[in-house]
């Protein structure tokens, strides 16, 4: 995990800066200038964390960024009442 952390950061930053980029693992490796075999486990981790979304079939997977949900209007009173 700690070994892949810098690559995770690189990959996250890539998709965060380019939120509508859609790439194959090979494409991501070219964009980052990293080896595909190093990228593959990182992509899996990011998918599990909900940062990336896997599209397409298993043979030709595609990945894109999942924008984090930001709550802009929080109803505190409502939340308190529900609690």
């Amino acid at each position, binding site marked *: 995990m700690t070994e892949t952390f810098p690559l995770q950061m690189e990959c996250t930053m890539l998709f965060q800066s*380019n939120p509508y*980029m859609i790439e194959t693992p090979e494409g991501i490796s070219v964009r980052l200038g990293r080896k595909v075999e190093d990228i593959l486990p990182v992509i899996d981790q990011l998918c599990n964390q909900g940062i990336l979304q896997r599209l397409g079939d298993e043979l030709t997977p595609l990945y894109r960024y999942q924008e984090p949900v930001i709550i802009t209007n929080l109803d505190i009173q409502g939340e308190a009442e529900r609690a």
Partner: protein
Amino acid sequence: MQTATGITGLDNILGGGLPKGSAVIVEGAPGTGKTTLGMQFLYNGITEQNEAGIFITFEEFPDQIYHDMKSFGWDLRALERKNQLRVIGISPKILLEEMQKSNGLFEQMVNEINCERLVIDSISLLRTGDSEKTIREVLYTLRNILRKFKLTSLLIQERSDLDGNSVPFEHYIFDGLIRLSLKEHLELFRQRTLEVLKMRGTCIMEGEHIYRITENGIYVLLASKTAADIQESTSDFQLKTGIPSLDAILGGGLDKGTIYMLDTNSKANYRHIVASILAQRINSGDRILSLLSSIQSIEELASLLEKHKADVGKGIEENRMYFIEHYKRSIPEKWQDAVYHVHTLDNKSYNLFLKNEIYPKMNSDLNKHKNWFIYYDLNAIINERGTEYVLRHFATETAAARSLGMSVLVLCNFKEVGIQVASFLERSCNGVLKTWVDGSYQYLQITKASNGEISKPYLVENINDCPYIRLL
């Protein structure tokens, strides 16, 4: 139906904008601003037409585009957050696969933001590796998909081999072609030009137009627009020429109270142009002063004007038409009073005759709010009085006419008088209509106008009915 690009100048060239739903190639060398033009088309679509857009980039990182476009004040990320724009980084292969899938990613994204405009940067990358036949099929499929979604699209392409003999098939497949070029200018500088070479379903302004990449994006300066003479162009009064196509080019007709030069070479037929303009003035009730040439007697002129539905005899009878005759020719008895014979006058006496007889007569009429139109055959004056006389008096005569609010049509052959004299004459006039023969065709072009418009060369076609010519 057209959709405005919002790019200054380009919409004028396109006659309003791109045909809605069309797929147009933007071709150019590196550094010509293809990406900027594409993004400006999308940005203006969102901010001015409320049309959402997608920008597809194959090689460039979207974040580089966000950054670059910020220099024009375009906050693309803000537009993405409002679901009005998407800058999609994708490979050409995946894009094509997704475009062909039913409810594929492409279709989903188009529907998600209700996309109406699309830019692909660049379709040159669809060409790599495959055979020409395959590439043709790919581009044909792409065009059909864009049509299916009714997307108005700009497809960016690296400049093709312009010197090659073959035309790339993309130019046939797609609806239009806009070419951006970078040329040497004044040795040290580069000049950027934009030319629309093809646009189905719309009339375009032909020619190369200079553009600049300004702080607000691309700005196209139309080639046919020079600095306008504000003072003259504010005039509301225009004189119809009687030739509808010429009036259209002139923006309504000749400006009243100004001096126009008709520059014609020896082969060109100018007679119907002059006759039509004169006939209009006669029938409008103007006072006319016409300088007769060696090749056109008063009777010949009357006969020509009759074809243009103007009655010289009636004009003379009503004391509205006068002629200056430099040649010893017989004049019909009933028209004698309308003709000034000047063949016996030397240059000095001729000039005095104009000052003492013609100008006061005109002045008296002008005080009664009568309009004067003068047809001045400068070729005759040059032949009879010499270039020296013209150089000395022409500017004064035209200035006097202008100050009195008279409209003047001057006939001259610039080629015959030489560059220096032609340049002087051109300066003295407010507008120049040039007509010439090239091969088997005659052309006409407005090369100078008070409103700054320079027209393209029009073909002059002979027609059977009055005014006997039409400009195409």
